[in-house]
């Protein structure tokens, strides 16, 4: 469906805000004009919680984080707390992390191996498959007052996995994960299956920033901020001193708001090849990917992708310090709102299981020094997101739009071999416009119908 068609539908819908403005009028992705109002406004935020965070598919965790029966981690699905657990029979499940009795949180460690979840409040205990094993003071319940068979932990509506990544939704009418990811799976293969399986190493770094979650999502496929936002790294020689250095690539819109890019190094830069992986691993691409996917993996050193709305990969070629050569890192990111102006971020480091030990160590060091809250890349991004948010709170600012018009008239590259639409020149805002287009669809779809807004 075209963005323009979405607008005319939306104008007949229920999307009028309290001040009389219509969301579809103030958010115009097809023109690259996005109202500042949507970033820090409590009314828009309340609508987002119901229309996006209660319905969409969200990333919970990777299979390598819960390898053994009983392994459990606490995450969120949307913004609701969940337990992702591999039960005693090896089945991966996800439940609302909340007792059926008074709603107390039942899993109170971030990561562990647990056979039972026992509520601290009255002692209700659940097996790790969610079944209620024991309530408390059961002899005081009369006939029909306690139906334990119906009081298991509340499961997510759907749980699915692709390439080891577990996603869930609270909407039983949502399309299947496979259908929802659609063409994005073709690109996810390049990142998550290029050499076989991946491992998420250790635990994620988790931190909060005083920003709108959407300024974070907006940033991930933005290539042309790198030269200036991360100019300190240009100055000390960690990035090329060449404003167009990340412009040699393609921006891709893969449908359903999923967006990505693949970027080559600056001309003559041979380090930004093969996704930054050591040459000894490049032969794996042919083995695990189809020829078109393998060619993309071979020829690029940078890629970012957003699985709509808030899960991202960053496949980059960076240097761990001023004396180390650039190499690959794979960083996975998730952010979700705590309020209109506060966001919680998760950042994971992942490595190919086939990677040699020295590369694994070097890539980890590269990751931890550049990314996450202590990373010399990431720090400056958060400064931007916080200050953009602070400036979007006031009533005057909310009357104005932000500018997302780069490449508005750019023609797709017919020679791009992947699915979706590939645009030449990786400096452009085609991806963000597609993201906001999807946001508008979800925000303007009446709730009663359920399912993805199509």
């Amino acid at each position: 469906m075209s963005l323009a068609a979405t607008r005319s539908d939306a104008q007949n819908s229920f999307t009028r805000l309290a001040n009389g403005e219509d969301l579809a009028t103030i958010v115009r992705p097809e023109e690259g004009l996005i109202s500042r109002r949507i970033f820090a406004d409590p009314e828009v935020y309340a609508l987002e919680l119901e229309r996006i965070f209660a319905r969409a598919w969200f990333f919970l965790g990777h299979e390598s984080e819960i390898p053994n029966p009983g392994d459990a981690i606490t995450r969120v699905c949307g913004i609701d707390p969940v337990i992702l657990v591999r039960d005693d029979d090896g089945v991966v499940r996800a439940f609302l992390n909340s007792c059926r009795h008074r709603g107390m949180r039942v899993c109170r460690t971030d990561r562990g191996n647990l056979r039972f979840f026992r509520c601290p409040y009255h002692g209700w205990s659940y097996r790790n498959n969610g079944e209620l094993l024991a309530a408390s003071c059961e002899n005081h319940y009369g006939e029909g007052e306690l139906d334990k068979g119906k009081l298991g932990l509340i499961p997510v509506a759907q749980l699915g996995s692709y390439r080891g990544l577990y996603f869930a939704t609270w909407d039983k009418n949502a399309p299947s994960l496979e259908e929802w990811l659609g063409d994005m799976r073709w690109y996810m293969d390049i990142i998550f299956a290029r050499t076989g399986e991946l491992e998420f190493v250790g635990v994620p770094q988790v931190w909060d920033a005083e920003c709108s979650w959407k300024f974070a999502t907006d940033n991930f496929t933005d290539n042309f901020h790198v030269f200036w936002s991360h100019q300190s790294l240009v100055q000390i020689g960690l990035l090329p001193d060449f404003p167009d250095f990340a412009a040699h690539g393609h921006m891709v819109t893969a449908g359903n708001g999923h967006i990505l890019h693949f970027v080559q190094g600056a001309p003559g830069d041979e380090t930004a090849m093969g996704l930054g992986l050591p040459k000894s691993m490049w032969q794996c691409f042919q083995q695990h990917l189809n020829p078109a996917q393998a060619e993309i993996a071979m020829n690029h050193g940078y890629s970012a992708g957003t699985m709509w709305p808030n899960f991202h990969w960053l496949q980059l070629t960076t240097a761990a310090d001023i004396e180390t050569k650039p190499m690959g890192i794979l960083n996975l990111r998730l952010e979700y709102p705590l309020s209109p102006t506060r966001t919680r971020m998760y950042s994971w480091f992942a490595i190919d299981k086939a990677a040699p030990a020295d590369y694994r160590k070097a890539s980890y060091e590269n990751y931890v020094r550049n990314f996450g809250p202590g990373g010399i890349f990431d720090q400056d991004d958060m400064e931007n997101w916080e200050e953009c948010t602070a400036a979007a709170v006031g009533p005057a600012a909310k009357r104005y739009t932000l500018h997302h018009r780069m490449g508005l008239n750019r023609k797709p590259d017919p020679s791009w071999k992947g699915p979706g639409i590939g645009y030449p020149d990786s400096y452009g805002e085609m991806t963000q416009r597609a993201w906001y287009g999807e946001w508008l669809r979800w925000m303007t779809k009446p709730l009663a119908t359920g399912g993805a807004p199509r």
Partner: protein
Amino acid sequence: MSAAAVKSAVSPAACAPGTPLYGEVVEFLYHEADLLDTYRFGEWLELFAADVRYDMPVRTNQFRAAGEGFQEMAFFDETFVSLKTRVKRLETEFAWAETPPSRTRHFVSNVLVAPGERAGELAVRLNFMITRTRADHGYQMFTGRREDVLRRVGGGFKIAQRRIFGDQTVLTNTNLSVLF
């Protein structure tokens, strides 16, 4: 080298509170904090040994039986060269997270000094608190335990190890753009 093989010549009594050695350690720590709070990052870097190990592991919520909850993964995992990289970055005009700079106050307390595992080294445990104010925002605070190893070099010390064990599992303070 086996850690136990070469014990420090320093006796526990020689570095107890009130001794000249204890006082020298505390003064060194205060000097370091002063350098950081007055943006003298180049001088701060000179306090570290070339083979320093500097890290800040990620903490998770765990039951007490599982220990303090520090896991595989770190917020910092640094060498001398990567610390130098951070300092060089902060000295540009373009490290936006610290441009204009935050105001910090580095506090150290509860200092315990013991003989180190290697000759000429002291093991120093302490509590730290770092406050930061930035732009027109309110206070942010970082607290935790630090485990430093100070190596006697000439008439002074070099920091041969710094392990930062933070209290927060979720950092609520935007980023770690200030030096620890």
